[in-house]
């Protein structure tokens, strides 16, 4: 994976070259079942439409009590897909509805050998620092553990 990309206090940018045509990448991003398979959430059918808010159960073992909540911003077929969410919103007992959101934008570009996918998440400067610090400190170990689960799953079920 490309390590390139810029980091300020407000935004994160990632670029990755995917060896698949744009149409294929677009489907992986915007068809709920496909998105759910790699993102790790049980997306209900019809989740993705501009303006629509979806709550979906996280599917990784041990993390089923967590909920993913995203509001779709824009969908420009095979070019741009964006949503808003509360980064690190991992505490089911806390109400995040009044907190500022960050914007996640996926951009697809034709590239040699496949599709160049750029992800930009921005708006961190407006996320209250106290919540941000605790949310992410709590999240760090959880994420490491979650990655191990995925690795185990992928290794144990290579055909799925």
């Amino acid at each position: 994976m490309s390590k390139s990309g810029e980091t300020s206090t407000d935004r994160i940018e990632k670029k990755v070259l995917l060896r698949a045509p744009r149409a294929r990448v677009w489907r992986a991003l915007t068809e709920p079942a496909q998105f759910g398979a790699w993102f790790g959430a049980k997306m209900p059918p019809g989740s993705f439409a501009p303006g629509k808010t979806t709550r979906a159960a996280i599917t990784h073992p041990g993390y089923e009590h967590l909920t993913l909540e995203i509001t779709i911003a824009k969908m420009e077929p095979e070019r741009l897909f964006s949503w808003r969410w509360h980064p690190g919103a991992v505490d089911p007992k806390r109400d995040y509805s009044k907190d500022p959101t960050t914007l996640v934008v996926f951009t697809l570009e034709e590239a040699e050998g496949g599709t160049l996918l750029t992800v930009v998440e921005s708006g961190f400067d407006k996320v209250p620092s106290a919540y941000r610090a605790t949310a992410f400190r709590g999240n760090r170990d959880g994420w490491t553990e979650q990655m191990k689960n995925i690795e185990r799953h992928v290794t144990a079920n290579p055909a799925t």
Partner: protein
Amino acid sequence: MRLRLVSRMCAGGPLSIVQLTGGSGVTRQAVTKHLHVLAEAGLVRDSREGRERRWELDPSRLDEARHALDVISQQWDHTLGRLREFLERSGR
């Protein structure tokens, strides 16, 4: 603009609004607005020196913010890695 304010405060602080506005090409009100956003994020803090308010970086919070972004940045690496694996596994 905010990055410029932060780098100015890195170079020498605490600074007054007048010092922070100087040469920026924007109004004091605009600078004040940006400072309040940064303060809300815990990146800068203000103090009173006599009748004047001065602004400086809050290094601990800045480290915290950088750390938080590092963690999210890593999460995106992992997430995109999973997308890549998914595409390779599922073919066309």
